[in-house]
């Protein structure tokens, strides 16, 4: 699921710190705005926009953090609005709903652990590529040189 790969160049200390911060940003946002699925995406997006002109290593990891958050937004939003409709509308709790929430928790937990691991590794300057998201980031984020 997670691969350690050789980056095209050796990132400096400052770059590793910034790249690691992009993952930390989403972690902090998850803790702060837990029930709202949009908060962590917004935090990562703001950090991404702020680092658009940064070095390749930083941009690459900001993009990976953003792309991963984007897909989580869909499943989290669906779960969030389903819960809201149960609380405030006529929807009732079904086995299907509980199964969905458990699936969402499993995926979020996996993403949470992967984010912590990646934040630690990128801080050391190690390039970590995620399953699917890493390949997707390679297409979106290109080296300027």
């Amino acid at each position, binding site marked *: 699921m997670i691969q350690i790969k050789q980056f095209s160049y050796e990132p400096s200390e400052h770059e590793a710190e910034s790249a690691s911060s992009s993952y930390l940003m989403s972690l902090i946002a998850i803790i702060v705005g837990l029930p709202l699925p949009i908060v962590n995406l917004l935090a990562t997006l703001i950090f991404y926009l702020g680092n658009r002109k940064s070095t390749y290593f930083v941009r690459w990891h900001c993009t990976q953090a953003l792309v991963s958050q984007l*897909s989580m937004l869909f*499943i989290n939003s669906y779960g969030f609005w389903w819960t809201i409709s149960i609380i405030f509308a006529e929807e009732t*709790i*079904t*086995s*299907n709903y*509980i*199964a*969905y929430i*458990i*699936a969402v928790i*499993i*995926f979020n937990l996996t993403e949470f652990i992967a984010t912590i691991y990646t934040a630690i590794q990128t801080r050391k300057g190690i390039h970590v590529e995620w*399953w*699917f998201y890493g*390949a*997707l980031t390679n*297409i979106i984020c290109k080296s300027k040189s």
Partner: protein
Amino acid sequence: MKKIIIQGAITILLFFGTWFALAQIDWIKVFKVQMVTDKTEQKLGEPFWKIIKTTEKENKNFHLVNAIESIVTQVCKTDLKEKQ
């Protein structure tokens, strides 16, 4: 590009597969949702009934109670059928 599409499809399938597999378990029974709902309804009903009893006059006329009970039973039966 093909590799990314396959990986993306696997990720989506994995999520829906997990959901589908988990949906096979009767979570309502596992978490005793019905029992908790019934208890909450009863707990909420008690103070409401107390308020109604203190503010309104209770009519214990046998014929009237019988007529209303038959209507309530009919409504509840239809509601249960619709739910099932």
